[in-house]
């Protein structure tokens, strides 16, 4: 599959008797924007630290360009990290910060000066050479941290929640900046975040993790539209997750109501989880849909209204640009294509995953 740049094989990491990563297998291709996404404690940062060389796995190997680099220290690895809180060297000015890696590898002064200019231009901070890190805003410091990493021409840039400390507006700006930089540099970005919106916006591929296990790998569209289990569905965006029974191919029973769907291959009378995105629930006049309910909550969210509809004793989360006041009787209809059927978790581990959310 493609050109494997770096690969994690059977990685297990244990802290204080607790398995943070359990037999993790993952590879990353060239020139991709990959995101490790999950709640705190899911093992995503540990995975990144193992890639960067700041942690040694208890079991398993890290393969980079065909070579085993599991026990190679960080300074010998051809990848660089952008840390969460910038981690700039406060006793050096911006130019010295950016030059740090180049000076260590013994590059000429002319080369270094060129690189500093290029890097500052890339991060839109031209002319900041003589400033001290403390005099820059959080967003600017983060750009310098990126500049400092990329001048070393790493094959892979590791980013550990780099936008976590920035405010919302700046964060959204930086998301576009990061995509632009990645395309300009043509290297692989491996990005760690717990923010699903960040992940959906920037990634070519998202790896959803929880409790040391990979839950799903896919494009943002795959992850959003076809979550493989209730954890992914719940973690990515809002969703209605109902227990149901797959009566036969393309027919699912939710609370005794028959819904047509498009999924096949689950067998007969198989218990499943059903995911319906709130924007996919269509409300209409009573009696015109699959079932009827009453609007119980209404919130204005700007782009759309968010409503809760009580039907069959269950709350249905609905997002619509059309407002239905509280107390109004409505019908609920869902396009078969928008009903996502998922297997019930099989192992206890996976069960715990779901309950934990």
């Amino acid at each position, binding site marked *: 599959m493609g050109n494997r740049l770096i690969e994690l094989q059977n990685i297990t990491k244990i802290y204080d008797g607790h398995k943070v990563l359990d037999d993790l297998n993952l590879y990353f291709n060239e020139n991709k924007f990959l995101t490790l996404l999950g709640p705190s404690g899911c093992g995503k940062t540990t995975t990144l630290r193992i890639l*960067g060389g700041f942690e040694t796995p208890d079991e398993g190997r890290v393969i980079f360009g065909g070579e085993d680099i599991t026990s190679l*220290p960080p*300074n010998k690895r051809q990848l*660089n*990290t952008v840390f969460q809180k910038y*981690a700039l*060297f406060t006793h050096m000015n911006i130019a010295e910060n950016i030059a740090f890696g180049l000076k*260590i590898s013994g590059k000429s002064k002319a080369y270094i000066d060129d690189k500093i200019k290029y890097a500052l231009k890339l991060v839109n901070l031209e002319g900041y050479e003589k400033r001290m890190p403390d005099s820059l805003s959080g967003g600017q410091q983060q750009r310098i941290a990126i500049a*400092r*990493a990329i001048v070393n021409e790493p094959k892979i840039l590791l980013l550990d929640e780099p936008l976590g400390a920035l405010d919302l507006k700046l964060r959204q700006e930086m998301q576009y900046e990061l995509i632009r930089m990645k395309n300009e540099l043509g290297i692989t970005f491996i990005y760690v975040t717990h923010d699903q919106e960040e992940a959906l916006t920037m990634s070519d591929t998202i790896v959803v993790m929880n409790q040391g296990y990979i839950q799903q790998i896919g494009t943002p569209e795959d992850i959003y539209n076809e979550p493989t289990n209730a954890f992914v569905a719940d973690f990515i965006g809002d969703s209605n997750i109902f227990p149901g029974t797959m009566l036969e191919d393309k027919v699912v029973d939710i609370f005794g109501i028959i819904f047509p769907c498009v999924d096949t291959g689950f067998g007969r009378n198989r218990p499943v989880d059903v995911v319906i995105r709130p924007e996919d629930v269509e409300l209409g006049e009573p009696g015109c849909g699959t079932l009827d309910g009453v609007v119980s909550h209404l919130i204005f969210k700007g782009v759309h209204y968010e409503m809760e509809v009580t039907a069959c004793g269950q709350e249905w989360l609905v997002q619509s640009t059309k407002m239905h006041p509280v107390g109004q009787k409505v019908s609920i209809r869902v396009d078969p294509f928008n009903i996502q059927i998922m297997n019930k978790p099989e192992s206890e581990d996976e069960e715990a995953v779901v309950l934990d959310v």
Partner: protein
Amino acid sequence: MYRKSLSYPYLLWAAAFIIIPLLFIVYYGLTDRTGAFTLENLAAIATAEHSKALFLSLGLSFLSTAICLLLAYPLALILSGSRLGRSGFVIFLFILPMWMNFLLRTLAWVVLLDTNGVLDSLFKLMGLPRFKIINTPAAIVFGMVYDFLPFMILPIYNVISKIDKNVVNAARDLGASSFQTLYKIIFPLSLPGVISGITMVFIPSLTTFVISTLLGGGKILLIGNVIEQEFMKGTSWHVGSGLSLVLMLFIIGSMVLSSKYDNGEGNVL
């Protein structure tokens, strides 16, 4: 904002116990017995005996400060990076002697280092070569290092343990070896602590007379002993004050020098 009047008791304290005594010293230092203005008391430092004491003081203080730094820095570095250190227990052990009286601790060294003292007897018992250390400058340096080492360890440890782990990781990530990381990142960032430590060891070493009296056997005169004698043996308060002023200049000088390297974050104690 606190009301200004709340600070009055402290201003009063400062005036009564800091400013006024200081003015007395300046007055005594710049006058003779008749009360007439003179610079002779300051010039008294130039006499052979006094300048010898001053230079010996400077030399021994410098040496003990350097030894403290060499001992304290690696320790602070190791402690700040280990679980043992973060728990604070080892730091506590190093501070523990400070709970005991300063005189008692110094006297203990007299017992240890004395001829036929604990160490000497031990050496004799084991048939090792015996050497006389009590009543030598070496014994005084011993005492200074022992008494003032905690003042070097604490500020350095404080500063190093506050350095962001990711800053160190970033240096490693950018290709620096552990040694390069130490001298390019950790050491420069810990300078404020080092400066604090140096100041806090150098100044008491420079002015001490207790350590030199006890461990130097009264034969080795440091500038502190000279000043003490001028006051206690009733020789001349005027000369004593004059010498104090000269010593003060050296202390102010060392503080100015250190504050040049200190960006204000380091005064942790």
